């Protein structure tokens, strides 16, 4: 069941690998010696109980946290510590567990901000709003409108995001990440707090992004049905350690994972 969507989708070689990552905040060990890899065009899920270190892992990949040990290898380049700007310019985009939109700005402006790194006119031209700056604004507006179409949020494009309902905000945040045309998309609980219809929509968007744009996706999710359906491979973390890694079927049969997270039906 988990591979129906990817017929015709080509999974490539290793795109991102994290090697022996350890991260501690003072005495608290958030991550201990974690290694796994992500292949190109793959959907890779990270699961585990609360406090297992899943979000910390994403934060290490895009440089918000600096791990004390280990290497992150992305697209052939090795980094001891990633830096957020470097990560963004190499094509890593992400969404946050607690929505981190720019609340005072419209949907459109939020998504235009997602394209910041692709805009290059200088301050002076921006103040005049002529020539290259005007052209650039229009060109990027066009690109952003494609994503607005794709996510079906046309009707709210001028609305300040603070006024939108939660499910739509989640969608806008995905849109802002997509606006950067990322090659690697990190999604931190994209479906948390959603009802079943919203979850289905979001799943469809994630699969479509992966299919149409070929974007590699790493996602954290607690809904096991979703994880089993959409992901190609799954990493399981518990107390900052890796306890399982493999296809959804393998992970589901893994005794350590069952003990720590999945549990058994009574």
């Amino acid at each position, binding site marked *: 069941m988990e591979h129906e969507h990817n017929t015709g989708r080509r999974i490539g070689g290793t795109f991102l690998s994290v090697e022996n990552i350890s991260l501690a905040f003072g005495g608290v060990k958030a991550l201990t010696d974690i290694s796994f890899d992500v292949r190109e065009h793959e959907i890779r899920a990270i699961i585990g109980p609360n406090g297992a270190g899943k979000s910390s892992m994403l934060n290490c990949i*895009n440089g*918000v946290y600096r791990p004390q040990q280990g290497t992150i290898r992305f697209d052939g380049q090795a980094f001891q510590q990633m830096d*957020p*700007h470097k*990560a*963004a*310019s190499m094509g890593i*985009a*992400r969404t*946050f567990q607690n929505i*981190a*939109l*720019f*609340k*005072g*700005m419209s949907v459109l*402006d939020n998504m*235009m*901000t*997602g394209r*910041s*790194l692709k*805009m290059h*006119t200088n*301050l002076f031209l*921006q*103040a*005049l*709003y002529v020539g290259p*700056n*005007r052209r*650039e*604004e*229009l060109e990027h*507006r*066009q690109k952003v*409108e494609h994503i607005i179409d794709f996510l079906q949020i046309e009707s709210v494009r001028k609305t300040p995001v603070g006024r939108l309902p939660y499910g739509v905000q989640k969608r806008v945040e995905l849109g*802002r990440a997509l606006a*950067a045309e990322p090659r690697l998309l990190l999604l931190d609980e994209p479906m948390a707090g959603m009802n079943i219809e919203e979850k289905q929509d979001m799943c469809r968007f994630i699969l479509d992004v992966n299919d149409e744009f070929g974007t590699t996706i790493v996602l954290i999710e607690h809904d096991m049905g979703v994880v089993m359906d959409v992901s190609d491979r799954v990493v399981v973390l518990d107390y900052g350690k890796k306890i399982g890694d493999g296809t959804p079927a393998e992970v589901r049969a893994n005794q350590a994972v069952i003990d720590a997270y999945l549990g058994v039906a009574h």
Partner: protein
Amino acid sequence: MLYRESGQFKTSYAADQQLFPILQDRIGVLTLLAVALVAVPLLASDYWLTAILIPFLVFALAALGLNILTGYAGQLSLGTAAFMAVGAFAAYNFQLRIPGIPILVSFALGGLTSAAVGVLFGLPSLRIKGFYLAVATLAAQFFIPWLLVKVSWFSNNSSSGVITAQPVEILGFVFDTPVRKYLFVLVVVAVMALAAKNMVRSAIGRAWMAVRDMDVAAEVIGIRIMQTKLIAFAVSSFYCGVAGALYAYAYLGSVEPDGFNLDLSFRILFMIIIGGVGSIMGSFLGAAFITLLPIFLDIVLTDGAIWLGLNLPSGTTSMAQLVVFGALIIFFLIVEPLGLARLWQIAKEKLRLWPFPH
């Protein structure tokens, strides 16, 4: 009924992204400009021009500068008056020490000097936020006027640091009468307001707001936080610097460093709080409120007392004016904490539907 955009279809993104997408807004702005450029100079008395309209425009420009920093980029500052002082004194010194330099170049250089000083005092913003940053900018507010008095070179060795602005002359045309000064200030302020509006709807404005609203997310998108904050300080101080130069050259004529005190900084901060934080228009509304309302109240209270036949002791009306002014500020902040600009926006949204409720 009049303010309705039905029938105005936008068929391109260019049409949607223009400055005023609604036809009525374009007509309104053009009318306002025409009134300000033609009708006001013809009709207004010298008192109105020199005591009301020129200071209103100068304060609006300073408020605009502070609004870029505080409203858009989210960095609280209490050093506005100090940056105005830098602009005024720098423009004076450029005029004084470089023979034959055009006045507008002096103003621009004054603004740039202020921008450099602003960046210097903006450096703490990289580590501290909010009220703590406000306290750090207080350093600028106390240090700069002190320095301008202490080092008499800045005021060309005049006593207590007073400078007398040179005449404003562009290509042989001297802006000496109130009407000419008013037009000069109006054009500078209008051009700079347009530039500010353009900045806040371009990439840099989005970067400022992104840093203001959620700095971690902005960083992950690839916005350089440090650079963005420092640009905000630079642009804001540039605006304040030019406002300071206009304050000296077109409004007061001669200024001293102590005139640019904390009281002035607070006044400008109140302007943006009442006008609307994060709104270009709010800067103008706030400046109008703070500069025009006391005069209006004064007239109303004095005439009202005469009309009612009350024989009030002198000073009562000015006291009453302060009381009413304070009460009005509190009233507006309770009714609409986001300022007059937000009230205006609500009014526009209502007007679009009027006379229907939905």
